[in-house]
């Protein structure tokens, strides 16, 4: 379509179009393959009877895999766990990130270094942060948290067996709070200082300034943080893999971990693919809004 339109125009434009095509071809075609081939395969497998442990069972299954998947209580438990993880981490990181952004925007001694310390967890690889929290912070006998609890005369908590989901949420929130802080701090920098000053002159207190000037200014950045975090948090994996392995029972099995169990531990390719399709659909619901917002920004 586009090519035909180009050809009807001047020769120079066609050459430009060709040049654009050849320059963009590697990136576009590779990304196209990377997206479309696995996607098509996932959808195809999800309609097949395909279990690596039962090679004789093959053939078209129709919606059988989806039927099994949706009647499996594990799926609903995993969906609930996914929602709880995403929801709580979002609440903690967005509320915490906003407050921290306001705090670190203020001038105080060594503010630059304090900022750098506060955003550091975001650069720590997930397996390291999960293990540091598991072994050194939350360990029931030798962890720092149990030592603090004991020093205060409180009973030590066996985090991963009594509060498994909370523990994972704490670890993931610790990793993503700095992300929210980093983005919101950047957004704060474009806050109109004169407007704040004018409001102060008019007798507005810090709380009023926060709710009527700062928060509306951060609205857009906050929604970007929420959408990007949702897409990543939907498929938390490493933190669960190295701490609880989805347990006890199914307590910390989210959608990503359930698919991993079905595919690489139970070898049920058909079921796992059906789960994959569900994950893709969920992520796309969020992605549509995010892409729209980025598009709007491109125009301005």
């Amino acid at each position, binding site marked *: 379509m586009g090519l035909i339109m180009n050809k009807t125009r001047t020769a120079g434009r066609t050459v*430009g179009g060709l040049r*654009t095509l050849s320059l*963009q071809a590697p*990136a576009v075609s*590779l*990304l196209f393959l990377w997206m479309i081939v*696995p996607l098509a395969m996932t959808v195809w497998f999800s309609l097949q009877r395909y279990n690596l442990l039962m090679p004789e069972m093959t053939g078209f299954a129709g919606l059988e895999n989806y039927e099994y998947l949706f009647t499996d209580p594990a799926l609903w438990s995993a969906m609930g766990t996914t929602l709880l993880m995403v929801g709580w981490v979002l609440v903690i990181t967005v509320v915490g990130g906003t407050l*921290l952004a306001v705090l*670190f925007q*203020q*001038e*105080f001694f*060594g503010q630059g*270094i*304090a*900022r*750098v*310390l*506060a*955003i*550091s*967890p975001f*650069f*720590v*690889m997930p*397996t390291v942060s*999960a*293990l*540091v929290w*598991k*072994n*050194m912070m939350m360990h029931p006998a030798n962890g720092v948290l149990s030592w603090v609890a004991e020093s205060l005369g409180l009973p030590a908590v066996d985090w991963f067996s009594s509060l498994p989901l909370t523990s994972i949420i704490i670890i993931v929130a*610790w990793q993503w709070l*700095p992300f929210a802080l*980093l*983005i919101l701090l*950047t957004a704060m920098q*474009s806050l109109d*200082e004169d407007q704040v000053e004018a409001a102060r002159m008019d007798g507005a207190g810090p709380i009023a300034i926060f709710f009527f000037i700062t928060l509306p200014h951060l609205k*857009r950045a906050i929604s*970007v943080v929420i959408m*990007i975090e949702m*897409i990543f948090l*939907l*498929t938390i*994996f*490493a933190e669960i893999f*190295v701490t609880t392995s989805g347990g006890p029972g199914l307590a910390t099995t989210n959608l*990503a971990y359930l698919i991993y169990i079905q*595919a690489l531990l139970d070898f049920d*390719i058909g079921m*796992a*693919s059906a789960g994959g*399709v569900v994950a*893709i659909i*969920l*992520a796309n619901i969020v*992605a549509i809004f995010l*892409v729209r917002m980025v598009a709007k920004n*491109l125009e301005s």
Partner: protein
Amino acid sequence: MTTARTKPLSSAEPGQLAQGSSWLGALRNRRLWLGVLGWTVACLIFFPIFWMVLTGFKTEAAAVADPSLIFSPTLDSYAEVQNRANYLHFALNSVVVAFGSTLLALLIAIPSAYSMAFLPTKRTKGTLLWMLSTKMLPPVGVLVPIYLLFRDTGLLDTRTGLIIVYTLMNLPIVVWMLYTFFKDMPKDILEAGRMDGASTLQEVLYLLLPLTLPGIASTGLLAVILSWNEAFWSLNLTSSQAAPLTAYIASFSSPEGLFWAKLSAASTMAIAPILVFGWLTQKQMVRGLTFGAVK
């Protein structure tokens, strides 16, 4: 900001001085309390990392003893981790995979970003957005086919396999960031080069790349950070041969592997370079992580 506000005070009339200095005192006090609060929060957030670094310098016995800041530091754990030659093997995998995939992504992305920034067509915007949308495909949704494709083509547990995955994973962000940096460049300079008879290749090599080097560097660093810390594909697609540090550290999760000091030493070495990269590029990183939606 605050200094600007205090300036008029110093030139205030003598009568107002008393009132002014108490106001100044209150301001100083406020800044002091803000400082205390800010530093407390920052230290609390940083504490797990600090504690890990500290534990790396302890003996195994001291590492599991009651938490204490006072101990005789030792480099034993570092030496031991280094001696188990395999640490270097995993570290080398991380380096090869992270830098290999970054270079490859830059190589593929530069022509594409160049044409988007300097030869935009009607479809440029659509292409950019489409590229971003590929980033939103959850990896777990395509784990099964990628795993099977890799198994059948012998790419499982190879560095090449991981490099391919990471290149494609980061390509949209790299194209996006380069595009924004290229677009910020004044067009006249390229125009002048073209007038002087430079070919497209010369234009890119001798004008565009040197002038946008800081932008390209921070794009590359972000891609290195993302690849270095990636833990979904590395855990699922590698076992021993090509396993990078993320997977190596994960092997410490088994109950019999309770060597906290060694885990800490290995972890400290694994995150130190990336922490520094992250600190250096935090400003430009926002651009890449939010696709330019937050400035």
